[in-house]
């Protein structure tokens, strides 16, 4: 009898749904929620180096950071990295995916090559780029010098000049995100119903016309998802800047997660560090909600 009752309980939506969701919620609440709450608390204190308590200082850390030029640079750069890298990624991926859905000889191998950046752990592949952009042994510079495109005695310093360093960091981000975005875009293309294709053909839409008026609009919702992941991966990633420039030259490539780490962990000012780390959260949350809503709306219409 008790066994029977338990079964009945499981049949009830009211009981079953919470029971199925509970483990996920508990896991997330314990592993993310609680630590996040603590980080929020820390951002209102003057806590130092690893200690998880401090004196309450109100919004002081936030105000201090907002008036700090280094923070401003970091904030601006985070936005620049994210937008530019993802613009490149989305255009590249849209383009590439369009061709990768076709069947052709050697596709498997080419696709393997394209997937490589996604497979490499970012902390390691960035080391590869550190070597590629090296101040003296850069293969890029060697090539440019031997093509007589740059001055042998004054080659570009990819990690030593503010604009080039920004470009280098954006390149690495775009490089590592492109495969993933392409895969998602292929998924988007694959999801376009066959009838739409046929209808387009009947209407005489081919080539570029079809790409712009049929394929791309239909790809929009899934492209939004690709961009969303891209944004999250770029804006919250520290590894690339940490390995390539550590924010240099003179903080010109500083970005928020890196600045939070430098302030809160390396320099021991935990309270301000927590404030920096949290600055981005509401912005990202807003962007995410808007993009998810957008993805759904586009799909519905």
């Amino acid at each position, binding site marked *: 009898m008790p066994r029977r009752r338990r079964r009945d309980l499981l049949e009830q939506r009211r009981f079953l749904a919470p029971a199925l969701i509970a483990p996920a919620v508990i896991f997330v609440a314990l592993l993310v929620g609680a*630590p996040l709450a603590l980080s929020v608390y820390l951002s209102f204190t003057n806590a130092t180096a690893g200690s998880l308590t401090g004196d309450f200082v109100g919004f002081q850390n936030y105000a201090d950071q907002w008036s700090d030029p280094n923070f401003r640079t970091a904030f601006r750069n985070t936005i620049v990295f994210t937008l530019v890298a993802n613009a490149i990624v989305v255009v590249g991926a849209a383009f590439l995916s369009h061709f990768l859905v076709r069947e052709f000889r050697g596709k498997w191998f080419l696709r393997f090559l394209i997937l490589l950046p996604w497979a490499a752990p970012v902390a390691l592949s960035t080391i590869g780029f550190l070597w590629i952009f090296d101040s003296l042994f850069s293969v890029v510079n060697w090539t440019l010098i031997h093509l007589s495109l740059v001055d042998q005695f004054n080659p570009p310093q990819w990690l030593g000049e503010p604009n080039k360093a920004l470009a280098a960091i954006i390149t690495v981000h775009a490089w590592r995100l492109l495969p993933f975005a392409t895969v998602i875009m292929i998924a988007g293309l694959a999801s376009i119903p066959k009838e739409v294709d046929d209808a387009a053909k009947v209407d005489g839409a081919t080539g570029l016309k079809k790409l712009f008026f049929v394929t791309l609009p239909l790809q929009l919702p899934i492209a939004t998802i690709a961009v969303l992941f891209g944004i999250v991966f770029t804006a919250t990633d520290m590894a690339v800047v940490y390995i390539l420039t550590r924010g240099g030259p003179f903080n010109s490539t500083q970005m928020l997660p890196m600045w939070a780490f430098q302030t809160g962990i390396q320099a021991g000012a935990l309270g301000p560090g927590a404030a920096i780390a949290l600055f981005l959260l509401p912005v990202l949350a807003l962007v995410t909600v808007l993009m998810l809503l957008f993805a759904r709306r586009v799909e519905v219409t």
Partner: protein
Amino acid sequence: MPLRRRDKLITYLVVGPFAIVLAFPFYWMLQTSLKSELDLYNTENNPFGWGEGSPTLDNYRFLFSDTQYVHWLLNTVLVGLVVVAITLAVALPAGYALARLSGRWGQSMGVGLFLVYLVPPTLLFLPLSRVVAELGLQDRLASLILVYPGFTIPFATWLLMGFFKSIPRELEDAALVDGASRLRTLVWIVFPISLPGILTVIIFTFSLCVNEFVYAIAFITHSDSKVVSTGIYTELIRGDVFYWGALMAATLIPSIPLALLYNTFLDRFIAGFTGGAFR
């Protein structure tokens, strides 16, 4: 549908350069990993060629015999697999419940779960290190296995939620009418059709685990328990000396099988994403 000659050419002209640019760093890692130090540091040498003492397998020999590289690789795989298992065990039911059973608020909860993903690990590792220590997991792989699901579960749940929504309700209803219980239906009807979605989650979760390194740095110092990214940092970057050749070899080795794996399952992954991501 076979392509016309012209289309074929255009395809190669587009895909080819992309592939070359994206894969070039790996070619470069390979070339660098086969060089002797003397050759590497000689600016007179053509970097695309071979100089004094190159090509050589010394860097690989060093990696495999003088460091615990293999051990770190195994650790990485182990952490990845266990985290994948935990993630699936928790996210499958949750995703299903959000998609089917909970109606209106399931939607917003799904979005809420995605938001969890945005929380920066930069400082989160501090409070978590207390948790890890209290559980006695400091310097053990188990510490990573404990915390990684914190960011994989929300994402996986969100993805699976979308996927389950795309499965026709009629299939389940039929089973339910036949007298099967909800759970039975879930396990025998719903999950099997969801394989592409599950595969997507597996690949994605695994790649997140392999990429993570902030927690791995903070929680594990013991050489036997290190994962690939942190182990390499310890052994191959010593103060101001980088062992470039070995570093490049160490990056190349896990990347190739992973890319092969992803490529093999890509079509299913694609199916999973189409089914799930934005519904």
